[in-house]
């Protein structure tokens, strides 16, 4: 209330701001050099022309964009990518939600142990885990044998969309669980108990209290998994056996195999547009939840 705090309050933001700028400068530089510039380059390439042999002709043309948006193959590819990613996200959500809820309620060393268990898959690379899934789902693998053992005909699990689905779902689950947990902050066990004492059955209390209170976590987890699913290419590439075509695998093929960089750039920018749309949807959901 006196002049003393006013003086220090006047000085602090100045010093604080300088420190903040100094601290943010390195990451800002890295972002500009490592992220903004490449994106800018991609955008530029997408308006250049590809030449035979992998060259880029520096002319301004809409050819990549018109060709891409007019080609049913690519439209199908975009839809495929979006729907597979949405499906994988939904599966990961359904499988992760109970785990996250259980983890949220667990306590002490049991909780620590389970959390480590959830995180541990992230310590191995997606390549290794994908090969693991190939071994499990392959023609002579344990899953197929088990289904045969029950006297049923197993569906084709490997080197098609089923395999991609299963593999991606499992690989994205740790991210989903962690995102859900991060968003469960508002879920107080007392509030659930209050619902139960007011006559809510466990299902009603889930529908009316737990689900709405965990919705921010669900939104966050879905955004994260969707983005990761759209951009993942190792798992679709390996588990799809060359028969599953998604945006990320196509970008890889165009950039590395066909050496058509302008087309790869155009597809990449398209992926960025999809991410933008996902972000817009996410913030709309968050706004509605509040």
């Amino acid at each position, binding site marked *: 209330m006196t002049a003393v705090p006013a003086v220090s309050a006047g000085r602090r933001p100045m010093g604080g701001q300088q420190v903040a700028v100094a601290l943010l400068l390195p990451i800002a530089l890295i972002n500009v050099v490592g992220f903004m510039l490449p994106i800018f380059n991609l955008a530029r390439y997408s308006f250049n022309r590809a030449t035979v042999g992998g060259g880029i002709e520096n002319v301004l043309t809409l050819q990549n964009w018109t060709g891409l948006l007019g080609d049913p193959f690519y439209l199908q590819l975009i839809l495929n990518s979006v729907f597979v990613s949405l499906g994988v996200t939904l599966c990961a959500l359904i499988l992760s939600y109970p785990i996250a809820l259980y983890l949220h309620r667990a306590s002490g060393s049991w909780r620590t142990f389970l959390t480590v268990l959830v995180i541990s898959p992230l310590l191995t690379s997606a390549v290794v885990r994908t090969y693991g899934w190939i071994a499990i789902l392959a023609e002579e693998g344990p899953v197929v044998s088990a289904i045969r053992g029950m006297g049923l005909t197993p569906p084709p699990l490997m080197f098609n969309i089923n395999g991609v689905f299963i593999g991606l779902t499992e690989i994205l689950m740790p991210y989903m669980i962690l995102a859900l947990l991060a968003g469960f902050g508002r879920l*107080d066990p007392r509030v659930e108990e209050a619902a139960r004492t007011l006559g809510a059955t466990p299902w009603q209390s889930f529908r009316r209290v737990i689900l709405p209170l965990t919705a921010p976590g669900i939104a966050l987890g879905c955004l994260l998994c969707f983005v990761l699913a759209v951009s993942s290419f190792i798992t679709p590439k390996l588990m799809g056996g060359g028969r599953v075509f998604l945006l990320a695998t196509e970008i890889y093929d165009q950039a590395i195999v066909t050496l058509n960089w302008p087309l790869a750039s155009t597809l990449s920018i398209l992926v960025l547009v999809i991410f933008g749309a996902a972000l817009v949807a996410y913030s709309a959901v968050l706004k509605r939840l509040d």
Partner: protein
Amino acid sequence: MMVERAMAAEAALGTPEGPDHLVLSEVGMTFGTLDVIPSLSLSVRRGEMVAFLGPSGCGKTTTLRMIAGLLDPTRGRISVGGRDITHLPVHDRDMGMVFQSYALFPHMTVAQNVAFGLEMRRMAKVEIRARVERALAMVQLGHLAGRKPKALSGGQQQRVALARALVVEPSILLLDEPLSNLDAKLRDEMRVQIRSLQQQSGITAVFVTHDQVEALSMCDRIVVMRGGHVEQYGTPNEIYERPATPFVASFVGRTNRLSGRVDPSGRLLIEGRPVAAEGRLPEGAVEVLVRPHRMSLRAASEEPPAGLNSLPGVLTGATFVGDLIQATVRIGAGEITVEQLTRRRSGLPEPGSAVTVAWEAGDTMVYPEGRA
């Protein structure tokens, strides 16, 4: 002083004499290896408000949660209106609970919070709206019906929690320290409000608190708990005037402790002097408890008042606290406190001088030594 006033109010109201409504028989709760409630039995009459009073960690909340069905008792039986509910799921128990943290639904408005229990009972929308309106008017929050809980003050949240629990007209209302987060003024108001709402609706209520004034002023009967068992169960007047144990005496109101002996002929002696007490006395070493404000003080030179117990001592200090004077007096090896109302012309003797402490035989509380 608070305590005395509260008791006068209580005596004027009288206690409901209905049949037993909520009955706990030999209920026990063990967490892992920790025996929190060894065995607890008590019954609450219909329309009665009973306080669970005791120090932190004595098992008040645990007992309340067992009644609500949020905890499964390890042993024993709980019944309401003669019906065994020990294993009835929470949502079928028809109890209203007010949590210490209020536990309002943060994603719902005040009106939606209050409507929740009615919706669970599948009541018609029109009826729900009417009842919610009435309940909010009752706690004077009608104007905040559209707010979210986080935009309310602590006292307002507390009233929403109360309205939410009462609106469903539960058979039993459970309150877990509902006033502990409020400031003194609001707490006083809410005490009166909760009590009058409870009496108007004739609802059976259990009120958990560790505040003795709250228990004495609001409740028909008090369960004094300690270490998971019932130390004493009685009306506020009984608890205060005839505490069953020294623990109850010192937990409810303040008290002085003196050591004495009861000789084989049944005479009570303190510092070798005979002291009168009412009732049967336990033989051997005893603890004698007397409330500070039931004692009076005068100079040793004055004639000790006839018909009263009196002990000689030395005045060691006096504190003036407005309407009271608190004097400390050394008697033998011990020290006691005497409280006297101040009068305009009553000077205390000088500190260090010899004094006589006096009290009525009926105010002497005697317990066998070592029964903490």
